[in-house]
């Protein structure tokens, strides 16, 4: 990135607080993701284009003009498609892990062994009904049955179609998927078959590999995303509108500060519960010289909690940031303990924490990190005691605050209106989707763009996503966010009703009339499931297929494998799907053609890889206008 004269930025972030903290990190000799990215340049073109295969020991092979085939005879298309499938497998398995944790938590909660409770009774009954259970049973017994039924769905064979797909997918969509033969069975069995296929010399047909990736993505959508979201709602509460703050400026220098970082909110919710109700711990914190104890969120664990500020997220102290900012939140020197769960905790986080008093703890049995020897793996039955232990550790760490390096907190913070989901959206709209559908039909809102996913240096931290969101808002397109992209929008102040002043005239009027911000926060990356359910509800209300709607998806800064599975799901779900950076398939001409053109004939969705965000917004607008015309609105 070339700098303009007078540009004092030292890293790719669009955020002032991060620029300030990056300078601070430099002073202290802390190297961050931003710096290591520069060290890695140039990045290998073969990897970028996805034409490098390292599966067997004849390799590594790479496709060039003089070697158009790998040693085994595989083409660039085979290699790229097979690698995409492997990435999607990783994504789906992480989602399955999260689903299984949700199931275990639901079961333990129903048996009265956890500090959580059955909060969303309607959702429990709805989901039980979908899986064919008798919903008249006593609630806790029903919850246990539901947990067992979802476990069965997760583990069953590939020959038994997933019930949730058959029940939740719009009928027209289901027909298309049936015709393609991509309705998945149990996700764990599908994963076994997909991993087998993608071994050396088993499935080398790129069309079949791509169809398998689509099949896995449907399992991702309905089990990994929607089932997980629903069960988490049952235990922790449906999203409900609440107000909180975001950015590093929310950190309180006078309290014991704990950060929940990752994707899974149970330990965070248990810690909030103890903070609110355990007077003994409060007294211990005061004895240590602190005014109190606060729990902040980072990444999606934070988004999960701030979606439920009136339920399990009560007392939540604010969202610090997303993936690229984890080292810099620690660099404030005011974080006493970081609880890491599931994915997205980087080794650099520990390196930064070592420059301070900050304690880093794994709270998930799948997460281990060099140098992290404090391990409190989440167990639903023990989480209450685990939360107490974590808070005590944080209080002990607090006593050492400032002894290694001084505290330095940027002033920046902004207000966030969070907690949008179907339920809260319906209550804001007066009980039905009609007001929203009416303004879409009238053209006051041209359409909806879901801007989701991670954050990434290659397109500039929170730079590509915010540019895209701003361009879309100017075009009267309502934006829904979830995942790490949400943090960027929150910190930019786009999730306040006052942000309506920044957007297109028509959309401004609607936001003011409905009292909603122009960018709606749907939560974490798992909450893409929530978005899919909302899109399905709109499609069903209009009696059309999802691919007919004036809706588009974008992951402008996608990073990891879960996002690959999500991206494929968006395409399979029938959405125009914009991706940045360009996924590693560029060197495989037939794969590129299928994903960017041919797949539209099959599912109605397709991939767009325009990396200029203003142009991408134009393409999204064109797509939305085309869909409006076809619908005659």
């Amino acid at each position, binding site marked *: 990135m070339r700098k303009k004269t007078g540009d004092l930025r030292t890293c790719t972030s669009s955020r002032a607080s991060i620029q300030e903290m990056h300078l601070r990190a430099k002073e202290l000799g802390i190297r961050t993701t931003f710096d290591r990215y520069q060290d890695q340049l*140039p990045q290998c073109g073969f990897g970028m284009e996805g034409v490098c295969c390292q599966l067997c020991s004849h390799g590594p092979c*790479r496709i060039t*003009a003089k070697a158009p085939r790998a040693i085994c005879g595989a083409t660039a298309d085979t290699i790229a498609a097979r690698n995409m499938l492997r990435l999607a497998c990783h994504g789906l398995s992480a989602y399955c892990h999260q689903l299984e944790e949700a199931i275990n938590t639901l079961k333990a909660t129903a048996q009265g062994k956890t500090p959580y409770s059955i909060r969303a009774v309607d959702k429990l009954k709805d989901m039980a009904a979908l899986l064919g259970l008798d919903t008249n049973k006593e609630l806790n017994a029903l919850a246990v049955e539901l947990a067992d039924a979802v476990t069965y769905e997760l583990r069953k064979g590939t020959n038994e179609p997933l019930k949730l797909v058959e029940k939740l997918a719009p009928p027209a969509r289901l027909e298309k998927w049936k015709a393609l033969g991509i309705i998945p069975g149990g996700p764990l069995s599908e994963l076994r078959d997909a991993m087998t296929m993608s071994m050396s010399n088993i499935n080398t047909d790129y069309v079949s590999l791509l169809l398998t990736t689509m099949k896995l993505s449907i399992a991702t959508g309905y089990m990994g995303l929607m089932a997980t979201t629903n069960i988490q709602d049952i235990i922790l509460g449906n999203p409900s509108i609440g107000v909180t703050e975001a950015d590093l400026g929310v950190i309180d220098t006078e309290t014991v500060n704990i950060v929940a970082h990752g994707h899974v909110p149970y330990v965070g919710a248990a810690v909030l519960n103890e903070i609110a109700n355990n007077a003994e711990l409060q007294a211990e914190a005061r004895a240590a010289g602190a005014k109190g104890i606060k729990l902040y969120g980072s990444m999606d664990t934070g988004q999960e909690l701030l979606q439920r500020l009136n339920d399990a997220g009560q007392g939540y102290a604010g969202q610090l940031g997303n993936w690229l900012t984890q080292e810099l939140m620690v660099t404030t020197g005011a974080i006493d303990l970081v609880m890491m769960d599931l994915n997205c905790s980087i080794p650099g986080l520990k390196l930064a924490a070592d420059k301070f008093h900050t304690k880093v703890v794994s709270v998930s049995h799948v997460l281990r990190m060099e140098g992290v020897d404090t391990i409190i793996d989440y167990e639903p039955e023990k989480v209450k005691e685990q939360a107490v232990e974590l808070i005590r550790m944080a209080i002990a760490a607090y006593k050492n605050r400032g002894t290694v390096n001084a505290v330095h907190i940027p002033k920046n913070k902004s207000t966030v209106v969070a907690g949008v989901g179907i339920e809260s959206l319906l209550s804001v709209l007066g009980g039905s989707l009609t007001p929203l559908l009416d303004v879409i039909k009238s053209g006051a809102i041209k359409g909806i763009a879901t801007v989701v996913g991670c954050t990434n240096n290659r397109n500039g931290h929170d730079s590509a996503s915010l540019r895209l969101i701003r361009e879309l808002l100017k075009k009267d397109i309502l934006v829904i966010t979830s995942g790490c992209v949400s943090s960027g929008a929150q910190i930019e102040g786009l999730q306040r009703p006052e942000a309506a002043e920044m957007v297109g005239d028509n959309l401004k009027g609607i936001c003011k009339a409905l009292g909603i911000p122009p960018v709606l926060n749907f939560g974490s990356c798992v909450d893409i499931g929530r978005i899919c359910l909302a899109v399905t509800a709109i499609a069903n209300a209009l009696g059309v297929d999802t691919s007919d709607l004036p809706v588009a998806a974008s992951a402008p800064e996608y990073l990891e494998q879960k996002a690959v599975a999500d991206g494929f799901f968006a395409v399979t779900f029938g959405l125009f799907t914009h991706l940045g950076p360009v996924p590693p398939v560029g060197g495989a001409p037939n794969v590129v053609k299928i994903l960017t053109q041919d797949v539209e004939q099959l599912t109605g969705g397709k991939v767009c890889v325009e990396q200029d965000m203003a142009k991408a917004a134009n393409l999204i607008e064109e797509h939305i206008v085309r869909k409006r015309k076809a619908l005659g609105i």
Partner: protein
Amino acid sequence: MKRLYVIKEKCNGCMSCVVACQKAHAHSELYAPIRESEPARIYIQTVLNAPIPLACHHCEEPACVRACMSGAMQKDEVTGIVSNEGNAQQCVGCWMCVMVCPYGVISAKKDGDKKVAVKCDLCRHLGAPACVDACPSGAVVWMDETEAKPHRKGGIYI
């Protein structure tokens, strides 16, 4: 006479040339040159988001030879190779050549107490540069000046 040329449009930044260069000059037989202290003598710089391979041009009038205080850095009259190795005088590690090189392609190597400047020697011990053999995309090439002529209008620059 054959020379090292770079067709920059063809480079995709895989750094195979860098690894091959380290391997060609490393003492170890094992394929682990990245972990060794032997610096590479060809570099990939990222310029405006594009990778550009850089190596010694073996200049007609080398600034490094003129700046060398010990006389170790010499241009071979027959092959044209500029090198501080294998000549009558020893490199003392004063880094004058590092400072004067207009292309920035000489690095400083510290081997225990011994300090020595390190630069491309066109792999004269091998007969042809290892980086050329290793380049999978035809960006780093070893060819005659007359062969290079048609490429002049393109991105060729060494």
